[in-house]
């Protein structure tokens, strides 16, 4: 319970609690007060004749307390909603800012579904806790305490019978939650399996249709759904009986109270009027007690949410240097770099040097570590051993703002934001004018196709907007790079899988972009990089050989082999 609240409070300490808590207390006191009045009424009922003036007086009292309760309930609600949503907003922004400072390794390690769940569903759940469940639960606890005190004050002997329900019922509640947790975990696993198979089914539907394995013939999915059904039923079948036992225990205590009271009555050790009011107030106590249980059950679901958010927030961001150094030039050095994630070693002892304004190409079979080298330069990850330097300064001594402002990175698969063309290009430099955007677009050979779009530069592209071809997207991303004007350019297989016409335009744009920059390029068509200053041949995470095209092609190594194969492939024809 305490852990529960801590996990959620961790999220934001500046809570609404302080003032709202006061309001809630006053609200609850004014909802209990009528029962104190009732005590008076019932006592008079049994012992005196009641005059009309008393009835009027009591009624006014009741209404006054009711209004008091309304006012403070509104105050509390308003406070809770305002502060609660404000702190959830802070949480959302903080999570967003935190995520972008995490190393890319975090996004590799976790699947994107989990991360977006932390950001969306889990925050929504915490929001629900902050704005609804927690205040209501606190209200119920206060109500429980107040009623309990009232009962003790009225008759401590009977109060004992009522209060004994707490130690009897709470263990049952905790037990049911434990069973629920265990069963829900199993259910969650079969849920994950089923939804994984469903995703597989939908994503591969073309293949499955082509090979006629749709519907019930795709047995994995059917079995997983059936298991999910059975495990879901089991959660209910195992946990509910205990939960009902918990509720029944509370009710049975009420019956025991009835029995005990009657005995005291028979032995004349209790007055009827006292017993009557006691019964009525004990009903209020039990009601509040039951709702604490209900809220606790709901809260437990939310604890996971809180914990998952905590996990994300506790991930260490990439360390910023304490004393920033500004590199003098834009050469790139890899000095005995070792890198891997998990147990998998990706780069082994990689050393090379790219002079300022030099052009170096990375080649090698897929999986040899080419893209990893580029991501280490932008510090998506930190190296395990050795160092990456820019202008002879270790990049961990350069602030991330300084580092990233020096680099343009053009990816193989371009991602566009669901926004206008202008906004997408502006990503390169938010301060640029519209004229500069157009100029960059012209340099990137995309001005003419942008002009033809329905709203020109204001056309929305990306997932929710107009569909662009791979080549068009690639040229937009090059326009971004033109606008950014960074002295270092990283190119990751930018022309793979484009048709010739598009490839031609992309190539022209890149030739311009690469001028006077330090360039590291990954290419699989060796022809395209034969005039690079330096070629590094990677194999299995290590440098196999390096040199100019002439040197390598005259050698007997991997490069020469790849070159031969490509020459052969180039001459291959379908007959």
């Amino acid at each position, binding site marked *: 319970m305490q852990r529960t609240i801590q996990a959620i409070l961790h999220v934001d300490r500046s809570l609404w609690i302080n003032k709202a808590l006061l309001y809630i207390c006053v609200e609850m006191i004014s909802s209990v007060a009528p029962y104190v009045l009732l005590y008076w009424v019932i006592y008079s009922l049994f012992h005196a004749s009641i005059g009309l003036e008393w009835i009027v007086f009591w009624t006014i009292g009741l209404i006054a307390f009711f209004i008091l309760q309304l006012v403070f309930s509104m105050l509390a609600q308003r406070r809770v909603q305002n502060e609660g949503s404000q702190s959830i907003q802070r949480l959302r922004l903080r999570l967003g800012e935190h995520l972008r400072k995490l190393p890319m390794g975090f996004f590799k390690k976790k699947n994107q579904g989990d991360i977006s769940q932390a950001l969306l569903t889990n925050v929504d759940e915490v929001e629900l806790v902050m704005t609804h469940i927690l205040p209501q639960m606190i209200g119920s606890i206060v109500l429980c305490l107040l009623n309990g005190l009232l009962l003790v004050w009225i008759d401590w002997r009977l109060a004992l019978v009522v209060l004994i329900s707490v130690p009897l019922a709470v263990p049952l509640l905790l037990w049911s939650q434990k069973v629920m947790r265990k069963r829900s975990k199993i259910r969650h696993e079969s849920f994950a399996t089923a939804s994984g198979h469903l995703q597989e089914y939908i994503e591969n539907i073309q293949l499955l249709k082509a090979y006629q394995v749709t519907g019930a013939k795709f047995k994995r999915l059917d079995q997983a759904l059936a298991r999910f059904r059975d495990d879901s039923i089991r959660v209910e079948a195992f946990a509910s009986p205990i939960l009902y036992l918990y509720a*029944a225990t509370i009710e049975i205590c009420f*019956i025991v109270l009835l029995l005990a009271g*009657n005995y005291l009555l028979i032995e004349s050790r209790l007055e009827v009027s006292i017993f009557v009011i006691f019964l009525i107030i004990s*009903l209020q106590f039990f009601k509040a007690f039951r709702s604490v249980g209900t809220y606790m059950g709901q809260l437990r679901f939310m604890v996971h949410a809180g914990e998952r958010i905590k996990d994300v927030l506790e991930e260490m961001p990439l360390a910023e240097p304490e004393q920033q150094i500004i590199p003098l030039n834009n050469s790139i050095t890899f000095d005995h770099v070792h890198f891997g994630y998990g147990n998998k070693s990706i780069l082994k002892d990689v050393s090379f040097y790219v002079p300022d304004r030099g052009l170096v190409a990375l080649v090698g079979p897929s999986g040899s570590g080419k893209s990893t080298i580029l991501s280490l330069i932008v510090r998506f990850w930190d190296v395990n051993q050795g160092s990456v330097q820019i202008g002879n300064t270790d990049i961990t001594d350069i602030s991330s703002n300084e580092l990233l402002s020096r680099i343009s990175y053009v990816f193989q698969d371009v991602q566009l934001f669901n926004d206008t063309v202008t906004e997408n290009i502006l990503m390169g430099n938010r301060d640029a004018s519209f004229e500069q955007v157009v100029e960059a677009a012209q340099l990137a050979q995309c001005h003419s196709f942008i002009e033809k779009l329905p709203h020109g530069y204001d056309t929305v592209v990306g997932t929710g907007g107009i569909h662009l071809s791979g080549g068009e997207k690639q040229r937009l991303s090059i326009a971004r790079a033109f606008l950014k004007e960074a002295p270092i350019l990283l190119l990751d297989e930018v022309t793979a899988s484009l048709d010739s016409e598009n490839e031609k335009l992309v190539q022209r744009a890149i030739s311009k972009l690469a001028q006077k920059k330090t360039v590291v390029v990954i290419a699989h068509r060796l022809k395209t990089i034969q005039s690079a200053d330096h070629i590094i041949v990677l194999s299995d995470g290590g440098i196999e050989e390096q040199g100019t095209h002439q040197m390598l092609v005259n050698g007997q190594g991997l490069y020469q082999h790849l070159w031969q*194969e490509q020459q052969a492939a180039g001459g291959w024809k379908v007959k």
Partner: protein
Amino acid sequence: MFNKKELSWILNLAVPQRRKLLFSCIYAVMSALFTLVPFVIIYHLSIHWLNGILDSSTVWKLVIYALIAVILRFVFLGLSSLLSHIAAYNLLYDIRTHLTNKLGRLPMGFFNQQQAGKLKKIVIDDVEKVEQLIAHHLPDFIVSIITPICVFVYLLTVDWRMALITLLPIPCAVFIQVKRANSGAGEDMEKYHQHLERMNGTMIEYILTMPIIKAFNLTVQSFSSYQNSVEDYTQLWKRLSRKKVPTYVLYTAFIESGLIFILPISLLFFQRGSLTIPEVLLFLMLGVGLTAPMKQLSTFSHTVQNTVLGIKKMNKILMAKELSEARADVSVIPQQYPIVFDKVSFSYGDRMILQDVTMTMKAGTVTALVGPSGAGKSTIAQLIARFWEVEKGGLFIGSISIRDIPQETLMNLISYVFQDVSMMNDTLLANICMGNQAASLEEIIQAAKIAQAHDFISALPNGYDTKIGHGGIHLSGGERQRIAIARAIVRNAPVLILDEATAYADSENESHIQAGISHLLQDKTVVIIAHRLSTITDVDNIIVLDAGRVVAQGTHDVLLQHCSLYQQMWHAYMEVDQWTLAGKA
């Protein structure tokens, strides 16, 4: 809300569960009845207290009745909830298999319009909402309706005037609710969901584009849509809650305000001598909380709305048009395999993809489709496999319209190697085996050898039994492509479609893949789509497409002389092939 057809499927699926649901309801009613018993007993005891005639045997007897009633109440409640859950989860399973079966029968066109994520969400999340309604709310709803009714009827028999008084909170609460509904609560809800959806969309985009966010050093503030959408959402929430709080507070307070009405009036009646103390007590205990269950009605209506929205989304899948199955009396199996397009037109939404395309791919020859991106090459390949339905004109294999060939037979005629190679999360063996379930292990190994995949498979720790995909090993693009080719070899179908089969291969793999493909081509009707024009210069026939029309056809030499588009493409290709990124040294 729905027409009959849109709801009938779910009712049909619910038929096997109706006994469970019926009993769940009956048990819920029973448990509601037993709730009343202890209070009736207290009422009778209190009469004894006041008369001063109380003996322990009466007390024992009544208390034991009350105890039995409590126990029975929870037994019935438990049974009711168990039955409703079993029924609900059985129904969910049936709905899900119903949906996935339907997905298997829909044309591919459906999947291109709907993102995979959306469909998954419908089958998982929206279906799950039905559970909430049936398993939780059905019994809860019955209990929270039936209990007050039982109590009310019982109170009527005790004192009808006071019984009516206990209902007074209802008109107050209803009045507040109606006022709230009239103040545009529906529109507010809609606005809220719009804002929520926008914020969620932006956040997902933020995560998906993380490499760019990082590379361009965009903060949450400068990735403005993130901050804006979060702030807009909070602003709206605050505005709505300011509006909502007073009515919400009034509503919940009035629903439980029984005491205010009951106490003064019962005292008045008592004072006039028309109500006894035990009766006052009874109304204070049973009457005060009588209207409280009404609070649940609003959550219930919320769940119903939610479920209705979910069912509407499911209907989008279930009401989509399936491919028509060939009529049994005309279905025929072609004996020869030339492919003929006769004035075929096809559009995707309102975008025209193919216009009046007429062409023949001769049996046993290789036909290449070339053209700028968007010319309709892949669509043609997909139409042959009937992933989409031709809108106008006819498509024939061996002079039989593909509409008259049973879907299963048609698929058996075709091997399709896709541009993006999909792999199932299964063993390599199972992945190759998909091509032909009857293939022996020898045949599979033979095919893998021809596809140049045997060597790398053998090098894997578990060989052909190695799992790939999620939880398994990761294959490179080229390796996946070779598996896909092995799949096609095992299938050995007379028609072969290659859609950019070498696009993702890296330099090392490409020549291997090409060797595999050359083997596949023999004696088949082959349709090939290739970007690298040099690979198809020797094929039997090249069809040049542009913007959905056939521009020219012929051999490479003929086209190079007569077709200006082909010339232009060829020159672009030559330029691309010669391009190098120049260093400065």
